[in-house]
């Protein structure tokens, strides 16, 4: 059975010892001369997988890898020479694929000049903040009987968000909490919930009738766990919202932005960033310094969080009788690895 295999296009050489000459199988190795590999040029992945002898398998694999690297170097060299020769006339360099670049164009992507989006934004629940009518006043609590880690995060969050207060949760239910906060003229409630004594999720409820967003909270790093961290001042920070491109993302971005006062104190050089990538919202806090026109120095302050939106409910917290604007249903949403919602 020697000859060119039509499927894979390589040349098989039979090598048998005389004692096994009856069996015309090229895969049987000879006893005397140790493991032998056929001198094939291109190994197919399946051949390597199907090979039972591990020593031979490893050898085949290293050979395949070496061949591949050689071919790649050749291609690169050829490409370089081509670019040198052509100069400016050379075809543009191909851009490598990333998950973000392979994301399908979202039809709900917000066009900043769109009249309907602007009108909607003018009259949504955050319009009072963006019209500078109401200053944000935030109530921060935890779940009932919180543990030490949550309270540590709490202390840091109270420092991050200007005009925020910590109130002990006690025995108050969520709906009563909402009612009482409205009476005391708070504009937002931030509740940190925990699981197994570690902070697990954040519920942001905008008052008096605003939406309620539930986020999953992961990768919490407090100030002391960061290397070369800085100590924050009490200046009001500027807010950066990155990559909130879809309609849902637009609403969430507005929500997160409306937690901070609309007049930042630039003298403090504080920035709070909410960076959205692949539906994960990364929260960072930095102090910046412009060294010259092109270079900036950054020092990280305060906590690091990662948030992921779980539900966005219209109206204040009401899980039994409320209407959801967006609900994370993983059967429907985890269908494609390339599409994201924020």
């Amino acid at each position, binding site marked *: 059975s020697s000859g060119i295999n*039509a*499927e894979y296009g390589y040349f098989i050489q039979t090598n048998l010892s005389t004692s096994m000459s009856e069996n015309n199988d090229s895969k049987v190795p000879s006893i005397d001369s140790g493991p032998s590999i056929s001198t094939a040029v291109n190994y197919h992945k399946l051949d390597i997988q199907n090979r039972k002898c591990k020593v031979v398998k490893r050898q085949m694999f290293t050979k395949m890898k070496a061949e591949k690297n050689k071919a790649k170097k050749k291609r690169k060299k050829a490409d370089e020479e081509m670019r040198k020769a052509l100069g400016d006339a050379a075809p543009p360099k191909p851009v490598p694929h990333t998950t973000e670049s392979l994301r399908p164009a979202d*039809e*709900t992507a917000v066009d900043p000049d*769109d*009249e*309907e*989006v602007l*009108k*909607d934004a003018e*009259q949504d629940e955050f319009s009072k903040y963006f019209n500078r009518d109401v200053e944000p006043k935030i109530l921060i609590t935890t779940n009932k009987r919180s543990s030490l880690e949550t309270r540590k995060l709490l202390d840091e969050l109270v420092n991050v968000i200007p005009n925020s207060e910590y109130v002990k949760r006690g025995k108050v239910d969520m709906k009563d909490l909402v009612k009482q906060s409205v009476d005391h003229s708070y504009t937002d409630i931030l509740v940190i919930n925990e699981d197994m004594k570690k902070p697990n999720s954040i519920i942001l409820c905008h008052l008096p009738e605003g939406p309620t967003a539930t986020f999953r909270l992961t990768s919490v790093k407090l100030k002391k766990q960061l290397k070369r961290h800085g100590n924050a001042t009490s200046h009001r920070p500027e807010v950066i919202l990155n990559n909130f491109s879809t*309609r849902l993302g637009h609403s969430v971005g507005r929500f997160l932005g409306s937690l901070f006062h609309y007049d930042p104190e630039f003298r403090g050089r504080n920035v709070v960033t909410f960076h959205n990538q692949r539906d994960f919202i990364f929260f960072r806090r930095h102090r910046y310094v412009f060294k010259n026109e092109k270079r900036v120095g950054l020092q990280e302050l305060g906590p690091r969080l990662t948030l992921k939106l779980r539900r966005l409910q*219209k109206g204040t917290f009401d899980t*039994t*009788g*409320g*209407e*959801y*604007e*967006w*609900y994370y*249903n993983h059967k*429907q*949403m985890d269908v494609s690895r390339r599409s994201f919602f924020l």
Partner: protein
Amino acid sequence: INFSILKAMANVWVATELGSLRAVDFKTQKNTVVTYDELDKKNEIVSISRSTKGNELYCTLAMNLINVFDTAENIYVNQYEMEGPLVDGFDIDDAFISCSKNGQIYVWRDDEVCEKFKVGENTECCVKSLNKEIISGGRECELSVWDVENQKATFTSKNVPRDTLDIRMPVWIQSISTLKSDPNIFCVGTHYHQFRMYDKRVKRRPVVDIEWGELPIFSLTADDKHCYLSNGKGDVGRLDLRTGGSICKYRGAVGSVRGLALHSAEPYLASVGLDRYLRVHHTETRELVHKFYLKNRMNAVVFTEAVIKEEEEEDVWKNLEEVNVKRRKLEAMWELQND
């Protein structure tokens, strides 16, 4: 049949939270926006209903207006004004009936209010019955059927019996629907995620009472044998009316679905809600036939008479023979090896 009107007709009319009416055409995949006033939240259209005469739509605004819109001419033709946040407006014979959340019902003849009567304190929904009566229900308002001329209730439902702990079951009706042909049966969806079916001839308590989902049932439509429900999470489902059992769900909606509509002739269901999408499902195969992004949160949908599916093209494709591609390739490989 006037083909020119049919061609120009959109398939679906949608009411949005900012007060615009959108007409969606499935063939050209386009939608046109019609506004009564500027795009403003105070002009929010709460519900739409089709009139029995001609191509008119009654658009109920949240504040105190009901606009009459002519779909053929694409202009607003008439207007009815009534106090208080409004619930619905529709026509019965030559009278026009408008209902507000206080329970006030105005009967209009020739654009003038002839009669007024009260239907309950917190009416959340008001629907026209097949017998030319008004069905209403709301928060702590039992389902009642009112005769327009006598201004009296011909049928009032009774609350279900107390539960095992002897606690009274609260009443909060969020959606009502009548069947297509039977005038005695009403379907009701409550805030406490119960689906109930009342038969006027049998008894005052519900004939079918089941729990469906975990959130309030915001919208209901019914056919003769099935009814379609949607709740605050985006679950749109189909129930069998004889047994009360749920048959299937129409997947796709992510936010609360506030409006459902059934096509009068063909098996299509349109759903519309807070996630800013209009979805059209085939009721039997559960297939998502059309999906449109309409930028605004939406409150109500209505189908027009326009035909959705064209028969001819489908038949051509069905008659073509299916060729199994994988088998062909394998056969070719075999031949090569054995040569």
